[in-house]
């Protein structure tokens, strides 16, 4: 069997391919974004007949995949955990209607959090939605659980959630490539209005049916191999243990390793089926132990389902930290304490040699916070916004451009699309007091399409007045350059119909719309001033400016065609204005000379910082004449390189 080292998300994609998935939809979001591209890669490599799409948002993605399942196809939808909030409406309803072809919802959690607004637990969402959830510990297990999820979904006609945490999705492990199920399942939607179009009277019937299914599933989970028990060698059926551990997900693997390190053996119940929890199996296990430690993340989904928690140690009694990732470093002191309490371990080993904290205290290390890339068009847009609106409130949104906080041009970031609605709410709040607060909302092109459109229509309809800047970098940059509706590129490279952002804006009733390239800072700032004037005019409302500049990582050709090399002159007095106001990683302070320098290794020659030194100490190096430029662009020298 072929072994391949893959990312957890690629292992999941492999599982999907092996299980014969026919329809795969997704909305990108870390840590889930690599699943769909890996499905596409294998689809192409193996010539499989699979429909894939990057949907407009998670709700749309879930509905499209669900309908395919109703038609009998095996279908999957993938997203990050906060995406499940957006998709929750159809998910809860789908639990009642049920499915036909296997339907798997993959929602990746982000304990930490590393790149999310919340540390919410998809498994608690599954309990709320009454949908079974499987919790893999490793990429290998995630691959296998995809098969189990489809089988379960088809057997009981329910959606099934697969919940990998970030340390599964972005773990790298060798997996075995199993055989691919290429047997065709033909689309055959069977009319059944009492189910697919159920009115509340039938919904009650469906709810009872769902409860019965969940009871049967729980009974199946009692003996399922997705859960497993490891007991110390010297056990009899009546042995009572001082400590037992119930664990799921990544903390299970960490527990195994820490027990090895402490050289302690305790009974260990691994739970792969978190909901419905096999309650009999769990309570039998608990009954054989004096104390039971529960390890799961990011929240207490197993623990909440245990009725008698008198001997249970976990998040609810404070044994386990209630926020942050359960890394081995976080769990080590917990293990040391708990094992000492039950007298399985005595020596007090410090988790970490304090020697390093002491030694490194005086070693200066550069802080490396995330920053907008050199040449990023968002930086130019934010710089101009700050110049034109010194006293505005800045409502922003989810994406790379949230890093506009570094330029002090982002005051709020709530959830996808909220730049527009937060600006609307702030407008109306101040309006009540008879004031018009200066407001600028910034939102990316992908986020605007995801869930900004409805907010914009609402703002126009209710007479809100603010400037909305749509930062259009022509791609979904943060998550890996997925296409948006504004392009003609589909997920698998095919051609799609363009749904243009300006058309969408006009269709929302917006009366002021300008498109402008933030690289031309003077023009862009004039447009912003015009927009501000419109919001204050008699017939004013929401003014929309589309800031068009392709993502520098995705398409650098506009810069390469007209590079502007800059130098900081010797006159630089080290005032740091450019470092604060423009905040480009390629502008660095030389502490020895107290002058700003250009870091040539990362500078992309965009020339955008020239304006950021009001003393004119940042200048173009050897400015080229227009004739030289024409000659340069005309030659094929660049291509030859």
């Amino acid at each position, binding site marked *: 069997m072929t*072994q*391949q*080292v893959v*990312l957890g998300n690629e292992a999941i994609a492999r599982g999907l391919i092996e299980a014969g998935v026919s329809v795969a939809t997704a909305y990108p979001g*870390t*840590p889930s*974004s690599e699943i769909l591209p890996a499905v596409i890669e294998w689809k192409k490599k193996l010539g499989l007949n699979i429909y894939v799409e990057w949907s407009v948002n998670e709700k749309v993605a879930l509905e499209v995949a669900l309908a395919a399942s109703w038609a009998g196809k095996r279908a999957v939808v993938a997203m990050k955990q906060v995406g499940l909030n957006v998709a929750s409406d159809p998910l809860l309803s789908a639990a009642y209607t049920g499915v036909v072809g296997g339907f798997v919802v993959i929602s990746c959690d982000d304990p930490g959090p*590393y*790149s999310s607004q919340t540390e919410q637990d998809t498994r608690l969402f599954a309990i709320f939605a009454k949908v079974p959830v499987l919790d893999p*510990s*490793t990429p*290998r297990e995630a691959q296998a659980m995809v098969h189990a999820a489809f089988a379960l979904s088809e057997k009981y006609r329910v959606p099934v959630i697969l919940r990998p945490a970030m*340390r599964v999705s*972005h*773990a*790298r*492990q*060798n997996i075995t490539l199993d055989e691919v199920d290429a047997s065709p399942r033909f689309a055959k939607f069977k009319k059944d209005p009492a189910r697919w179009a159920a009115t509340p009277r039938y919904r009650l019937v469906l709810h009872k049916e769902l409860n019965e299914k969940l009871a049967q599933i729980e009974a199946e989970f009692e003996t399922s191999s997705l859960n497993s028990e490891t007991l110390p060698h010297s056990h009899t059926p009546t042995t009572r243990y001082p400590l037992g551990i119930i664990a799921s997900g*990544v903390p299970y*693997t*960490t527990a*195994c*390793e820490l027990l*090895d*390190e402490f050289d302690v053996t305790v009974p260990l119940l691994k739970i792969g089926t978190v909901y419905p929890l096999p309650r009999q199996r769990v309570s039998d296990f608990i009954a054989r132990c004096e104390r039971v430690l529960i390890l799961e993340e990011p929240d207490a989904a197993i623990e909440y389902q245990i009725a008698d928690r008198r001997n249970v140690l976990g998040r609810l009694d404070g044994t386990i930290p209630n926020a942050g990732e359960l*890394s*081995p*470093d976080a769990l*080590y002191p917990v293990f040391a304490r708990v094992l000492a309490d039950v007298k399985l371990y005595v020596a007090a080993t410090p*988790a*970490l*040699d304090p*020697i*390093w*904290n*002491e*030694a*490194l205290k*005086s*070693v200066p*290390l*550069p802080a*490396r*916070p*995330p*920053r*907008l*890339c050199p040449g990023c068009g968002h930086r130019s847009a934010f710089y101009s916004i700050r110049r034109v609106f010194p006293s505005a409130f800045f409502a922003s949104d989810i994406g*790379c451009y949230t*890093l506009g906080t570094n330029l002090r041009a982002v005051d709020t970031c709530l959830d996808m699309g909220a730049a527009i609605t937060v600006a609307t709410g702030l407008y109306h709040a101040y309006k009540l007091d008879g004031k018009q607060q200066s407001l600028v909302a910034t939102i990316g092109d992908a986020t605007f399409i995801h869930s900004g459109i409805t907010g914009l229509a609402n703002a126009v309809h209710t007479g809100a007045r603010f400037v909305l800047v749509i930062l259009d970098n022509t791609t979904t940059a*943060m*998550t890996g350059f997925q296409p948006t509706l504004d392009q003609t590129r589909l997920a698998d490279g095919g051609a799609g119909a363009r749904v243009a952002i300006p058309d969408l804006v006009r269709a929302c009733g917006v009366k002021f719309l300008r498109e402008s390239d933030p690289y031309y800072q003077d023009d862009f700032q004039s447009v912003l001033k015009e927009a501000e004037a419109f919001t204050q005019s008699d017939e004013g409302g929401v003014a929309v400016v589309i800031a068009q500049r392709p993502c520098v990582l995705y398409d650098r050709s506009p810069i390469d065609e007209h590079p502007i090399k800059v130098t900081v002159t010797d006159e630089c007095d080290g005032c740091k204005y450019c470092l604060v106001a423009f905040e480009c*990683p390629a502008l660095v302070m030389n502490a020895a000379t107290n002058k700003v320098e250009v870091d040539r*290794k*990362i500078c992309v020659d965009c020339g955008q910082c020239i304006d950021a030194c009001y003393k004119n100490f940042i200048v173009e190096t050897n400015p080229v004449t227009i004739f030289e430029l024409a000659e340069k662009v005309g030659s094929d020298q660049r291509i030859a390189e």
Partner: protein
Amino acid sequence: MDSKILLAGIGGQGVLFAHQVLADCAVAAGLNVTGAETHGMSQRGGSVVSHLKIGAGSAPLIRQGTADFLLAFDAAEAYRNLSFVRRGGTVIVNYASGDFPNEKVVGPLANLHVAARVLDADGIARRLGRVSAANVALLGFACTCDGFPLTREALRDALARIVRPQFLELNAQAFDAGVNAGMENS
């Protein structure tokens, strides 16, 4: 034998690529691998750390004080992650000026019997005309260190499998330069 290797650097230095080469090499040798990567926000010019475990076990993260090797593609990232190295472990650093370790950490390194090996991998890469080859030079250097779990031949084979053909020659040169530097000052 099980090994834990922590790779640390800055976005763009090819930390994840180095991780892939090591992992692929270990699997070709019939070993299991598990590891963890950082994606998303942290890739925007930030510190990049990746954890690689070769052998038994399936927990993706390395606990502080337990790594056999720290492969640092940048000196600051080496300092930042020194606490991951176990007693008797080895730290391998890409650093030009030759004065790693800083005087503040010389004592602790000696007390914990941690070997520090320094290579100007950026210099090697610059001489070869491709700055991005520094990661591969450091891999070549690493495999000459005592106890490194993968052999030079196996790593060279892994490179041949993974690197695109047009860049293979250059990568092989960078790798061999790293190996030679390691043999000279070992």
